[in-house]
Each structure stands twice: as C-alpha cells, then as structure tokens.
C-alpha cells in the first residue's frame, strides 16, 4: 500500500499531501492539517458533525476517502471567518443561542451556509430538510432554525 499524492484546495489554500488509501478526509483535515474545527462523531455518515463543503456540496467527510477528494475545493468551518469577522451564519447562531455544546455547530453552520448560498430565502421546511443530516442533541433544533431564518429574511 503506497502513499498517494493528492492536491486539495482547503479554504482557498492549496495543499499537496501524501495520503494513505485508507485515510478519510476528516482524518486528513484533523490529524494531518490540524483543522480540528471539523468534528468527528459517529464515523458512519449518520450524525453530520464532520460536514464539509466539497466542490459546492455538503458531504460527510468521514465517508470520503482522501484519495477520492483529489483535486477538490473544500470549505471547512475555519474558512468562514473573514477580515470582517465571523460569517453571518456564525453570528446568527451566537445571537440566537443556537450553540450549546458546540459539537454539531461546525457541520450545522456549513449545511446552513450551503443552503443559503443555493437558496437565499428558504422556507422553514426547506431549512429543516437541509439540516436533516446534522444531528444536535442539545438545542432541540428550534433555535438553530430560528438562527437560519433570521438571515433568510
């Protein structure tokens, strides 16, 4: 099993990394690049805490082989903040108390951002559906939905 060289553009920065075939994208992000904002929960695509945006779509990075991500553009939670400060979705989550323990927040915020990029004025149903792959065990979802709605208006 030889290492393979992959090229990833993560948060607009290019990386050339030699990865093993059995390394998942979440492990490369966290353990190789130190981008620990991406959380690792169930490891089997059920919880969504490892959500990243890959080539414009949200994915469970625990199910993506790093070798299969070769050439992709990836946005992690670290990529949302700009010189102007936190991303509007991040601010809304704080203002609406949509963050409690924080473990789901990275994935939840990325799923919400991706929804708003594609559909700036989603209905409540569309918001709930877009976030349905991200589990939160603290908030009961209501405050998260309200945070997203506050930007959608």
């Amino acid at each position: 099993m030889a290492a393979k060289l992959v090229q990833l553009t993560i948060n607009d920065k290019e990386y050339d990394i030699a990865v093993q075939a059995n390394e998942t994208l979440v492990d490369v992000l966290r353990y190789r690049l130190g981008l620990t904002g991406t959380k690792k929960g169930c490891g089997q695509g059920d919880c969504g805490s490892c959500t990243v945006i890959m080539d414009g779509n949200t994915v469970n990075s625990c199910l993506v082989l790093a070798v299969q991500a070769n050439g992709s553009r990836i946005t992690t939670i670290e990529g949302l903040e700009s010189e102007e400060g936190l991303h509007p979705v991040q601010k809304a989550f704080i203002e609406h108390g949509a963050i409690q323990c924080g473990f789901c927040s990275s994935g939840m915020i990325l799923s919400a951002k991706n929804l708003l990029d594609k559909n700036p004025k989603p209905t409540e149903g569309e918001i709930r559906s877009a976030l349905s792959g991200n589990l939160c065990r603290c908030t009961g979802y209501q405050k998260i939905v309200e945070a997203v709605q506050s930007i959608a208006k």
Partner: protein
Amino acid sequence: MLLPKFDFDEPATVSEACEILAEFGAKAKVIAGGTDLTVNMKKKLLSPERLVSIARVPELQRVDASSTMLKLGPCVTIANIAESGEIGKRWGAICAGAKALGSPLVRNRATVGGNLGSARPAGDMPPSLMAYGARVVLTKKSGQRVVFLDNFFRGPGLTEIAPEEIMTEIQVDAPPPHAGAGYINLGLRSSCDCNIVNVASYLVLEGPGGPIKEARIVMGCVGPTQRRAVSAEKALIGKKPCEALFTRAGEAAMTDSTPIDDFRGSAAYKKEMVKVLTRRTLAAAFEEALKS
C-alpha cells in the same frame, strides 16, 4: 472507527476498470460514493484488498433522458436524481425514491449504482426502478450483458454482478401514454433512517380512466430482496381502477409479502403497512396516469 488497509486504483475509463477487475476479481471492490462501502469496511464486515474507484469515469456519470429511454450512469448521485426536472417529468417515482434516501449529506455522495449494488432489502432506489421495469448493463473485459432488475437481486447484499463485472448503465423505458407510478416509504423519521416498509406501484391504462392494462407492484423490506406483489398485480389487470380495487390489491399484496419480526417492526405490522402503502401508491399511480 478506522478503515482497514487496501490498495487503491482510480481508472479513467470503463475498459481500464475492467482490466483491473479481470486481474483482481473478488479481491477487489468497486467504489463510487462510498457511503455504504466505507461504513461496512469500518465495521470490518468487508475487507477488500483493493478498491477500484469508478467515480471519475466520465461516461458513468451521464444522465440521458432525451429519448424514449432514460439512461442513467451508475455514478449519478442520488442528489442529482432527486433534483432532476427531466427525470421527474416522466419518471417521478424514481425522484421520490431518491428524495427519500439517507440525508442531504449522504445524497450528495451516494450513487444510484451503489444503492442497487449494495442490494439492501430496504433500499430506496430499487422499488421504483423495478416498477418501471428497469434494466442494468453489466460490463466486463470480454463483453456485456443486460439484466432486468427483477432478476438482479440475489439476497441481502448479493446481486448478479460477477466479481469481474461493473454496472455501466441503468436503462428505464419511458412510460407509455396513460401510465403513472408512485413510491412511498415508511420510516421512523424522514432523514437518516432505514425503511420499515417501502412500496412502488406502476400502472398502465387502456385509455383515460381505465381499464388497467399493465400493473407492477414492488415491495421492499418484506423479504431477502425486493419482490413483486404478483397476486395483487393479477387482481388489477382488466379492471376499472377505483379505491375499492386498490384496497383489494393491497390485501392481496399482504399475501405476497414475507416480512420478519425485527427491531424495526413486527411482521404483522409490516404486512398491514404493505396493504396501506400498496393502496396509496396505486392511487398515486392512477392519479398520474389520468394526467398523462
């Protein structure tokens, strides 16, 4: 959970992929989106020595709905099918199945070929594809063959695909005039769950309003593979469609199903749900047939 070690190939063409599979056979596994395979490998249920990724073979990602036949590349993602207007217009029940699968995150990676190849009895794509009479093209180095989905599934996780073969296309004929289909899945929640029962129905009428010329009802979760509700289909042929007839067909479908008791539900409950979903999907199919 860590993945076991394996070698990795990423062929650029179907023939290159076939060469690799001809060499490694059962030691290799084909991977596309990986939403099912990687989980099974993490759980050590499968440990292939080699993964052959077909996700970057351009011809396996095509959707062609322009002719009288829908041609789907096996690597088309479930999200693309769910959102496809051109598939939804003529093959609405396929989109309904795609929308019901997994979560938005899973749908962005999971592929239609993967959902068929993983052969789960509760899968969301097989029932409606079978109801439309879909076929799959299986290709190997020395040639290809076409298999009806009715003959494709062999048991949980088992299919007709030989170790040296790759699914290279899914073909679905366009429904004739006065035809319609419906798909309903019953689960505990609408995302990230496994179906308790799912049913797809397809009807062709002689003319507007009936009688019924052709009927196919496919049930999931009630046997080791998806199965046709043969006696329910028989009960429909030649009859004028109405709610009472659909109820009788639902009762007949119960006798065609062989569910087991498990943590998702009792066999008796699943049979009852077969009745309800058969009736409702037939009603949906009839409604669509009246409009087409």
